[in-house]
């Protein structure tokens, strides 16, 4: 297999790479049309380190590996980032728990975390509950 192909297969299997590629791909996110901010993620994986730099300018999104300054800098273990970009870990809860550090603008980080997906099992749907079940739960009739 040519080397380039192997890289892209590995990339396709890697949730972090896949997430940032998907974020970069449309080039514009209407959700952030009123906002501009840059977030840099310094990702640690044992001795390996990688950088992702997400820059949003009035909705226009660009993702690079640029190590330059950003409004917010996040230092995070790769396993936690993988959990976040696949919706298995909520970024706000993880922040309160001290799973990663964020320096600089909290607002910039807030914007980034809104790009993250919801939990994999969430459907947005729920089965209706009839009146008699509600009444029974309350010990009535």
């Amino acid at each position, binding site marked *: 297999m040519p080397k380039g192909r192997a890289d892209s297969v590995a990339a396709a299997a890697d949730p972090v790479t896949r997430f940032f590629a998907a974020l970069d791909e449309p080039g514009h996110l209407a959700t952030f049309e009123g906002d501009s901010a840059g977030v840099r993620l310094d990702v640690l994986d044992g001795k390996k380190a990688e950088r992702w730099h997400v820059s949003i300018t009035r909705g226009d999104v660009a993702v690079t590996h640029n190590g330059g300054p950003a409004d917010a800098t996040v230092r995070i273990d790769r396993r936690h980032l993988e959990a976040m970009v696949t919706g298995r870990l909520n970024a706000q809860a993880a922040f309160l728990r001290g799973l990663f550090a964020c320096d600089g603008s909290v607002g910039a980080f807030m914007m980034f975390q809104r790009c993250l997906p919801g939990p994999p099992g969430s459907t947005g749907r*729920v089965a209706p509950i009839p009146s008699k079940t509600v009444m029974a739960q309350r010990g009535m009739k």
Partner: protein
Amino acid sequence: MSGGLVQILEGNTFVVSDDRGDIESSLSDPTGLFSFDTRFLSRWVLTVNGQRLNALSTDDLQYFQTRFFLVPGSGSVYVDSRLTVIRQREVADGLREELRVLNHESEPVDLHIRIDAASDFADLFEVKDALKKKGHYRARVADLHLVLEYRRDTYVRETWISSSSPSDIDEKGLSFSITVPPHGEWKTALDVVVSSEHAEGAVDRPTRIRGQRHVRGDMERGLEKWLQKAPLLECDWEPLAQIYRRCLTDLAALRFSTLTMPDRSLPAAGLPWFMTIFGRDSIFTSLQALPFAPELAATTLLALAERQGTRIDDFRDEDPGRILHEMRYGELTAFEERPHSPYYGNADATPLYVVLLDEYERWTGDTKLVRDLEHAARAALNWIDEYADLQDNGYVSYQRRNKKTGLENQCWKDSWDSISYRNGDLPGFPRATCELQGYAYDAKRRGARLARLVWRDPAFADRLEKEAADLKRRFNRDFWVEDGEYFAVALDSDGRQVDSLTSNNGHLLWSGIVDKSKARAVARHLLGSRLFSGWGVRTMAEGEARYNPIGYHVGTVWPFDNSFIAWGLRRYGFKEEAACVVAGIMEAAEVFNGRLPEAFGGYPRKTTRYPVQYPTACSPQAWSTGAPLLLLRAGLGLEPQGDNLIVDPALPKRMGSLEVLDLPGRWKRIDAFGRGRVDTDRVTLC
């Protein structure tokens, strides 16, 4: 004060202690030093020579500052008058206490002063529900500090305690061995700083102490400036001046800054349990305060947009475009044992968000903010149709997806029995409560105005107006209870009317969804004996099976509810009826010394001379604090029209002459005058 306890606050940091200034809390007891929903001190006890102190007096100097005058000896009869201890306390990013010991004798006195300190680091939710902790505690002495620490995996919270004068520090507190000269004084300052640290792991340890301390002078000047900036009120009826000042001071105390906007503030919901952003409460309070402090609305709109839902998350009941219900920062939220990071389970804040944005523009002319928040407003409007129509019947309804820790009732009447049929039966889920349809209607109408005026999208405006008209037509057909001539509180999951008579009818008038032909009947009910107690409109009418004058949402009178009802009555031209609501609630506020509780009993006024306060731990509460402001607006008939402010007063006769000077808005500053001419006594006292 609440329940004999003394409380002071700043932002989301607050202290609740006994009248000596001591804290001795148990897991289920709401005393302590709290910050970011976590208790950082659960024990803080002062002794002199091993003796507890006795309170002579306690002064609330400011909302963030208290002074305790104490003497040794805990007996109620004997007081050792040779010594006085003055404890002056203020809250900032923690607590600072100045301790002064005065010797009244002509001989020097040797004393052993001791402060016992400990913390259980309870999450506010644990205090409310008496839950057990899962982490580990440690106390250590480091760098002339007593450091109390709680650790659960990477979650670390610490309390750092130090003093300005030398002390012996051990793991349970600080001791001072002192000699006070004859007629002399000894003093020290105790400093308690709270810290939310990151633990080791992938990250370095950040700076030791979070945030910067406020300086007392800044806080005092801040309050003074806030009061000076507010419109000036003068009135023949003296209690109104006290009510107004109390409102402004409590509103100042309830201001809350988010981590993303430390220099701006929005109203938190209430002290002590609700010092955080609540979508509904922050919006309603911002609406109430709009004529007096429009900057609160701007911050509320920005802060809620920053946290607007973007994804489907069943645990948090989040959808794209949904406005949050409640944000929390404590341990249970951190470990996802509670969904408040943030939790989105409400069905009203999202349409109300658009209502506030439009009302804010009408008052201030700030089209820049409306442009900046265009996407947020469009996402909110989209949520109404795409995500809130759970039954595919064109109505907003709610049902929680988080069945364990989500909220069952996602409207403002959120207690379990608030929505019922006349016979007391409870409907199933989803529930489409009536006021939600009103808010959705109003959001569409107001969204259309903004689309046309600011977003330059007339096609979108046309669509919204068409949808609003269709919603109004269907609503007046499907929710109208023919035999009672009012609107049902809800439609159940079968589309059947949940037919009890409730105060929600007043919110419908406010929203404008009521057909003109039906409005008079609705107004008659609101001021009729089944709903109107003499002090205000009850949440549920007398005669309904679940009616209870001291039932939380089934018979009590809520000042906030009444303020919107009064606005609703004005919207349909019922000026005298609105004046009666203004009179009832303002007269109740007089009895409560200017600070309206969350709710009070729905007993008829003629049988109880005083309004009976509903027992609640939350005071002041933001939307009760804001109620008199909106009632002033309703009484004076203040309504922006283009660049002018219309003043069309209909005030209770008792108020006499009323002037509100320097009302801010797109007109810069304007004065409003009114004279009480409506004989409200014939309704409120009969």
